[in-house]
């Protein structure tokens, strides 16, 4: 075999299209080679295989059929000389192996496309970027998925939380009467999963018995029939496959009861249902602790306890399997280990105090420790109080001149008249011409209102130009982000990337920005180039940086 893949399973005496040969199950494909040949006649990649089928039980021919995506099918017949049992065994081994391998490859091809489509539909920004960059051929589609999309892909990958076991899952299997004294139980895979998690003994039995000794349906029928399932567990006499399970459960319970509760804050003994009996407790103690209760009731209570115990243990196991621990569990474990190590009473109280303290205080709500401030000793106090006086300013200042007394007299005279000149002549306050002048200067576009051009342009752009501008900004910023991330280029890959990004930016400039600017000028000329001036600025600074870098490289190499 010239292929470099590992052969996982090799079965000889397999017939394909009436010819005998050997079937090879390899890492990535299924291959069949005819006897006395050394080239493979049939080879199917797992990625191409849609599903596999086996011939039903009871048929004389033991066959395995592989159906491909394009509906072509290949049938392999197992003809081991050892007889039907051998053939069945071989076929089943191939089938099992395929069952494990196929799922890995099966969904890869479509799944990738599906994932990409889903990403694009979920993130409209990503869709916009894709449209702008790939469809206008600024960058290729592989570059796009390699560089720009990963940020969005990562958001989808999260830690899957393990699903816990519902306490009522057994009760949820509501039986339906079959009409003629029979009961129908509906089992879903979730329920089966819960049963296996809670009762590992049942899982072990399942693995043993199915599918060799009995089928799934038989197993579950027996399960429901057995008293193990029902509340009255009289399991001493029956020869049931589940009696063992019950015994194991009992043993587990006893072990747990013996090991006791490790959490020092839980006091089981105080759970008793002590009420004041007649006579306010002074009278004789009768019913509280008597054991005259029904055996049936006790059994039921024992069943309940066992069930709850198994459910809790199942959740605990799944948590510790995954490596993360809930807070409560962690506390229980740490406190239990401490208790086991020392076992002193003193340590138990310490543990209790610690536990209570943990519940009371929140670290991030406490105030941070106060800093010790240094004492301020000033030598030039006036400097500190008055600050620096800029000499230069005062030199250019107007020297103070005494106001001439005549001016002052005139002013005082003006002011002393009780009412101003406006009472006689309204225009004395302000002439109309001056007022109009002032208004003109202060209106938008006037000499005093120079800074408003950019702000006014925001209200002048039509909506479609605005949206186009937004998408342009998105694409440019994404490209620029990758460009600037390449600097300083320390490795050859970064240098390469910088060069490609530089070319991409030029392509983008020509393909997207220039047409947009032309369009803006055509449609809405008052805006002219102001609206894209920032974009141009961004691109120009990127070009400049690249040019400087190239220059430096040239200089170094000289």
């Amino acid at each position, binding site marked *: 075999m010239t292929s470099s893949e590992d052969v996982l399973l090799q079965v000889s005496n397999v017939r394909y299209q009436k010819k005998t040969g050997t079937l090879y199950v390899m890492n990535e494909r299924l291959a069949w080679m005819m006897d006395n040949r050394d080239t493979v006649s049939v080879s199917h990649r797992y990625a191409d295989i849609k599903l596999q089928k086996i011939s039903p039980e009871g048929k004389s021919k033991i066959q395995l059929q592989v159906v491909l995506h394009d509906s072509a099918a290949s049938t392999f017949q197992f003809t081991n000389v050892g007889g039907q049992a051998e053939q069945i065994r071989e076929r089943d081994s191939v089938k099992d192996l395929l069952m494990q391998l196929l799922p890995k490859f099966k969904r890869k091809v479509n799944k990738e496309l599906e994932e990409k489509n889903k990403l694009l539909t979920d993130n409209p920004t990503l869709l916009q970027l894709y449209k702008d960059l790939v469809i206008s051929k600024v960058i290729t589609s592989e570059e796009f998925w390699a560089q720009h999309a990963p940020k969005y892909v990562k958001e989808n990958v999260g830690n899957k939380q393990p699903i816990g076991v519902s306490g009522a899952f057994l009760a949820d299997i509501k039986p339906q009467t079959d009409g003629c004294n029979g009961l129908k139980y509906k089992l879903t895979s979730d329920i089966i999963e819960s049963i296996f998690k809670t009762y590992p003994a049942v899982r072990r039995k399942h693995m043993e018995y199915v599918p060799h000794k009995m089928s799934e349906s038989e197993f579950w029928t027996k399960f429901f029939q057995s008293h193990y399932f029902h509340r009255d567990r009289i399991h001493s006499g029956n020869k049931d496959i589940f009696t063992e399970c019950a015994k194991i459960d009992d043993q587990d319970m006893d072990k747990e009861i013996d090991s006791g509760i490790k959490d020092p804050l839980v006091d089981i003994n105080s759970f008793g249902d002590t009420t004041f009996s007649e006579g306010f407790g002074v009278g004789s103690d009768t019913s509280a602790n008597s054991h005259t209760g029904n055996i049936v009731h006790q059994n039921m209570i024992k069943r309940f306890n066992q069930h709850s115990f198994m459910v809790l243990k199942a959740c605990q196991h799944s948590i510790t399997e995954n490596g993360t621990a809930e807070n409560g569990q962690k506390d229980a474990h740490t406190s239990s280990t401490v208790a086991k190590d020392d076992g002193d009473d003193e340590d138990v109280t310490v543990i209790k105090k610690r536990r209570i303290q943990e519940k009371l205080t929140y670290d991030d709500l406490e105030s941070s420790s106060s800093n010790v401030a240094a004492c*301020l000793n000033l030598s030039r106090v006036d400097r500190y109080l008055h600050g620096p006086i800029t000499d230069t300013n005062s030199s250019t200042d107007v020297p103070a001149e005494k106001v001439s007394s005549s001016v002052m007299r005139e002013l005082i005279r003006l002011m002393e008249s009780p009412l101003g000149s406006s*009472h006689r002549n309204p225009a004395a306050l302000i002439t109309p011409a001056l007022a109009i002048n002032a*208004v003109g200067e202060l209106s938008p576009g006037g000499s005093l209102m120079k800074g408003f051009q950019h702000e006014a342009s925001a209200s002048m752009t039509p909506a479609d130009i605005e949206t186009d501008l937004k998408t342009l900004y998105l694409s440019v910023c994404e490209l620029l982000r990758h460009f600037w991330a390449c600097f300083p280029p320390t490795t050859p890959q970064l240098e390469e990337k910088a060069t490609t990004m530089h070319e991409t930016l030029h392509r983008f400039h020509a393909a997207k920005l220039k047409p947009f600017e032309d369009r803006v000028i055509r449609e809405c000329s008052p805006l002219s180039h102001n609206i894209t001036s920032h974009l141009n600025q961004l691109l120009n600074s990127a070009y400049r940086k690249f040019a400087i870098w190239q220059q430096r490289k040239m200089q170094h190499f000289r």
Partner: protein
Amino acid sequence: MDTGEDLTESSLLVVVLDVGLSRATTLRNDPVLAGQVLEAVIAFSNAHMMMRLKNLLALVACDTETTEWIYPERKADMSDLRQQDGQHELFNELERTVRRKIAQLLKRSAGSNSKGESMLSGALGRALCYVHRMQQEERQLNARVLVVTANGQSVSQYMNFMNVFFTAQKQNVLIDVCCLGPESSLLQQGCDITGGQYFRPPQPQGLLQYLLWVFLPEPLLRNKLALPPRVKVDYRAACFCHRELVDIGFVCSVCLSIVCKFSPICTTCHTLFKNPGTLPIKPKRKKAKMV
């Protein structure tokens, strides 16, 4: 409705008038213009009172030696409160009071022959105290201070000005400045810090129109109007040793005094500093030499 009246906000305007003319180049030789400026300010104050019944007004004047509280007076002189040519009594009283008191102030300063910087920071302080008092009395009040000055920069009061500006900022009081004389970067900083408007009218004769247009709207209305855009303020600090504006300098971490060159001992608080030496140079990467 009573409840309607309670809900409206009243607006307090405090006008700080700088009457010191010794450094006012435009006004000190032109009494008529100076008189016009004062009358414009009075008319503007009336306009403010006219905007809403609940509006409040105060006036502080300052010159080179004192600050004087002009309006409202504590003891109102009710003698000549007679209507004249149909003017609203409030406006009448305002005008009379302001004119009378400013005349008194001018007489005093004319007699004393002083010259120099006006006590503008002190007047601003008094204005802020009044604002604080009114904020306790009135439930809903927005306050602003208008500074009308013809003098330029008053550098000797730098620290006082800064204190006033930051106090105003804390109290949510806007400080507007109408500057009739040379540009004052200090007052520009104040306007920038408190969110007020700095304006320099190109023609002092048209002052009333400029005042009405730019300074009459209340703070909340201003961002809905197209007012002159903000100027770029020069926030550079001056170094303590040469008193020159510096862009990059050294600051003592104990007393926060700014110096332009490093000195091992801070001159104000005598803290010792280690010599930083030259800035650390990044080791140059050795590029492969082409053979």
